[in-house]
Structures are given as structure tokens and as C-alpha cells.
């Protein structure tokens, strides 16, 4: 007994030593700590992405057992499909118009938020609400605001006599109004993110620059647009790219507000992919529609990295 205990005792330190050597080996430890996250991401982002590529060159549908390779047929079909082309156009239209508005509004709003004042936390909370609240629920709020009969907008405009007593615009039911409504909701939702990013940029500008400018007699707004804005331009680009990426890929606003209607006039790539692939069961077609988003995203990401790198060098 005693002998075996001695052997155990003699072996134990060497085991612990080996373990401690492993826990001290930086390279080994670094890989071991990183590996689980990488494996998870590859399994649930990388592989599904490859699967999406594979689906898009087949005729796979839900319940179809005879899956064939069809080459680029799905993509060619898409380009001949007027609904798809309309969705592609809408995707660009919504993203660029809303983010153009967002970046202009954000530069004003961030400027106004720069100074400290009493109750600033409350103003900030209110302005951030649209970004923080679940999008689908915030959008339902808008669904009620745009309601055809009980719309608060219509009531207000009628009561201040902008509309005559018999004007009943149907915000989500007329093509042009529906486009404007969707853009409004996108602006509402993505303005907070852009504002806070730009605000972060403003606060990184050294105070001496502002001081020098005010000694030279420049007023606040003049200083803002001639000095501050050019200095934070890279960060404004970053804010705009994130906004573009979120707007390009969003289907929630469309799904809740219009379902792509009236007559597909507000359909976007993401919602079309959902209606085709999940509700229609045409997995291959849906995957192909969704993949048209990828070049847009890849271009945005590359641009984002360029801007970020340049900003760091400056």
C-alpha cells in the first residue's frame, strides 16, 4: 500500500507539471481558447453559406427528392423575373435614400448632442429607443400610425386643414406612399446608430482645434460644418456603411408593414427570398435571390476595412 502510494506521489508532480506546462504554453493555449468559437462560427455561418451556394445551382425544393444540378439557371431566371428586378431596385432605393437622409440628419443631431445640458440622458434615451427596441415591434407601432382609417397622421393633417375633409391617403396601400413610408421607418430605425457613432467621432477631436477656430471668430455651426465634419468624415463613412448593410439585408420592416405589397412594389431581396424559399418552398430560387445580396455586402465590407485602416493611419 505504502509503496503504491509512493509511486502515486512520485507520479503526481510530473502530471501536474505537464499540465502546467500546457497551461503556460502560449501558442497551444491561444489556439485551444480560440478554437471553440471558430468551430462554432464555421459550422453555423461558413457551412450554411456554402450550402446556400450549393442550393442556388440546383432545383431543390421542400419535399423534392430528385435534386439535379442546374448551373446558373436560377440566377438567369431571376434576372428575367420582373418581381426580382423590382426587388433589386427597391433594395438599392431604400438603402441609399434612407442612409443618405440618415447621415445628414445624424450630423445635425450629433452636433446638437455634443454640449452637456440638464436632462441629456433622457433625450439620449428617447433618441436611442428605435435602435434598441426590437425592430418588429417598433414597426408595428408604425403600422398603427399608418393605419388606413385611424391614422394619426391623417387626422392631424385634416385638423390643421392641410388635407380636405375627404382626403384619405392609404399610406401602405398606394405604391409611392408605401415606398415613402418604408423609407421613413428605415430612417427612424437607423438614425440612432449613426448618431452615436458620429458623436463618438466628434468627441475624439482635440479641444484645441475648436478653441483655435473660435478665437478666429467662427460660430458654432460654421465650426461644425467647416472643421468638425471634415475631420470625422471617415467615421461618418463607417456609420453610413453599417447603416447600408443593415438596410440592404433587412426584411423585417417590409414583412411587418407591407409584406412587399401593394403588388410587390415594396418587395426587397430579403423578403422576396423569404416568401419564395420558406413560404413557397422553392429553396433553390430563394437561395439564389438572397445571394444577390452577397456582392453588395462584400463590397461594403472591403470598403469599410479600407476606411477604417486609413483613419487609423491619419
Amino acid at each position: 500500500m505504502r509503496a503504491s502510494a509512493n509511486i502515486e506521489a512520485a507520479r503526481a508532480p510530473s502530471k501536474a507539471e505537464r499540465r502546467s506546462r500546457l497551461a503556460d504554453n502560449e501558442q497551444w493555449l491561444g489556439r485551444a481558447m480560440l478554437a471553440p468559437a471558430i468551430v462554432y462560427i464555421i459550422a453555423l455561418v461558413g457551412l450554411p453559406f456554402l450550402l446556400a451556394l450549393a442550393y442556388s445551382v440546383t432545383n431543390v425544393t421542400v419535399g423534392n427528392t430528385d435534386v439535379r444540378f442546374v448551373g446558373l439557371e436560377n440566377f438567369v431566371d431571376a434576372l428575367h423575373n420582373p418581381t426580382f428586378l423590382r426587388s433589386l431596385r427597391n433594395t438599392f432605393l431604400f438603402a441609399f435614400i434612407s442612409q443618405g437622409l440618415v447621415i445628414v440628419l445624424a450630423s445635425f443631431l450629433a452636433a446638437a448632442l455634443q454640449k452637456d445640458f440638464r436632462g441629456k440622458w433622457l433625450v439620449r434615451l428617447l433618441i436611442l429607443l428605435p435602435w434598441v427596441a426590437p425592430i418588429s415591434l417598433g414597426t408595428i407601432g408604425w403600422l398603427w400610425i399608418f393605419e388606413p382609417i385611424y391614422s394619426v397622421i391623417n387626422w392631424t393633417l385634416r385638423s390643421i386643414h392641410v388635407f380636405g375633409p375627404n382626403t384619405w391617403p392609404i399610406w401602405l396601400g398606394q405604391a409611392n406612399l408605401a415606398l415613402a413610408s418604408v423609407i421613413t421607418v428605415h430612417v427612424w430605425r437607423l438614425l440612432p446608430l449613426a448618431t452615436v457613432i458620429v458623436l463618438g467621432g466628434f468627441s475624439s477631436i482635440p479641444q484645441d482645434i475648436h478653441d483655435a477656430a473660435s478665437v478666429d471668430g467662427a460660430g458654432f455651426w460654421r465650426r461644425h460644418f467647416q472643421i468638425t465634419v471634415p475631420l470625422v468624415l471617415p467615421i461618418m463613412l463607417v456609420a453610413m456603411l453599417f447603416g447600408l448593410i443593415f438596410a440592404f439585408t433587412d426584411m423585417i420592416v417590409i414583412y411587418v408593414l407591407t409584406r412587399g405589397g401593394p403588388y410587390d412594389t415594396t418587395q426587397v431581396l430579403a423578403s422576396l427570398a423569404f416568401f419564395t424559399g420558406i413560404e413557397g418552398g422553392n429553396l433553390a430560387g430563394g437561395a439564389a435571390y438572397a445571394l444577390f445580396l452577397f456582392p453588395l455586402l462584400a463590397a461594403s465590407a472591403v470598403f469599410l476595412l479600407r476606411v477604417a485602416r486609413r483613419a487609423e493611419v491619419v
Partner: protein
Amino acid sequence: MTPAALKRLGARGVNVALLAAFAAFASFPFAWMLITTFKQTPDLLDPNHNPFVYHQPPTLEHLRVLFFETLFGRWVANTLFVGISVVVITLLLAIPAGYSLARLSGQIGEKLGIAIFLTYLVPSTILFIPLSRVISTLHLQDSLLSLVLVYPSFTVPFCTWLLMGFFKVVPRDLEEAAMIDGLSRFGAFVRVIMPMSIAGVLTVIIFTFTLVTQEFVYGLTFITAASNLTLSVGVPTFLVRGDVYFWGSLMGACFIASVPVAILYNFFVDRFIAGFTVGSVKG
């Protein structure tokens, strides 16, 4: 008053007007939810009534219907379950990965970090079709576990990136001192670095939770049984029956499900934004 003082007053007036206008625009839908929640239905559904005032006394009827006659309570519970599970998985994966990228992986660490962050930008709208087949192959359709499995695919990249930033600012000397005192490298991480990064971990918990409450596309795709939905999908799809909108209950549900989380999140938002601008703001 001197002209300069007048000018300053004017600038301040412009500021206040701007902020008031933006705050009103941003919060109007939520204020509208709140007003609608307590209005009696006949009052709501009269196009001649001024919608800003109560023509009949406020009522709690819509909230009663919401809590006792719909699955709202169930959806709250489902959201909490998915949220907490995803937080646990995210922490287990992102803490070691963030530390590894910050300290141990050297030059490659920087590039890998950016690559991981970029996967956060691969949208669910590209992945939901193949993932729906993966989920049905795993027999997880209609199960909350499908969401628990898939949600970390977007929370882990962002949280790894955020935590990497937190670990980078902890001085290296602290670990080295701990290692001289006899702790292993890993021991130094657990006993010295982790306690100093509690703020980072808390931030990650809040963000993971808000990302989970916001997610819509996967929930809509994987789950069809009404009793297994989360709030963000259940409220817009099942509180609207056919063409009948129960506006009072619907607005109550939206308000309750969005505003408390928003207030919590507000305390952490600066850190979140730092995550977006790392690399583009000079440190």
C-alpha cells in the same frame, strides 16, 4: 442684452428645437403605443375622435386580454429562456476567444479578429434558407433549442470582438506579476484578468440579450407553433388574427416588450458603439 449674448441665446434655441424635434420623431411610436394601450376600443375606432386625448375613461381591458387570453406570457418566458441560454453559450465561447485574440495569437490575432467581426455582417437573410434545412434535419423544427443553437452564430462574433477590446486595455504587467507569483498563464487569466473585466462581461450579457430579443428572421423561419415563439415574432404574427387587429393589446405588447430592455441597454450603449468604431477612431 449684448448682441453676443443674443447670438448665444439664438444658438441655444436652435439646439433645443433640433433636439426636441428629433426626440419627438424617435419616441413618437412608443408614446403612441402607450396612449393606445389604455384607450377603450370604441374610442380608438372612431375616425372623428381626436386621437391624442381620451374621450372615454382609460381602461386596463387590453392588458387583461393580453396577459390572460393570449400567449404573451408564454412568449416572455420563451424569450427569457432563449436569452439566458444564448448568453451562457456566448460567454463560454467568446471570453476565451477574445482573450486569445487580445494576448496570445500575435500578429495573426489582429487579422483573425477582423475576420471574426466580419462574419457578424453576414446577414441572417443569406443563411436562413440553408439553416432551415439543417434545423429540420436535426429535428429541431418548432423547438426553442433551434434558436439556442443558431443565435450564438451572430452573438459570438460581435462579443468576441468587444471582449478583445476589453482585454487589450488590461495592463500586461498584471498577468506577468501573477505568473511570477506562481500562477500559470491560464491561471493568471482566470484569477487576475477575469475579475478586472467584469464590466466587459456585463456589457456582453446585455448585448447578447438585446440581440436575442431583436432577432426575427430565424424565429419566423424555424418555428411555426404559436406557443414556442419568442416575443419579436409572436407579437407581430399571432396578435393579428386574420384581418382583425386588436390594437390596444398589440400596442401594449409592443410597449412592454421594447421599453424596459431599451432602458437597460441605454447604460451600456457607449461600449457597444466603441465596438463599431474600433480601428476607425484613434485610441
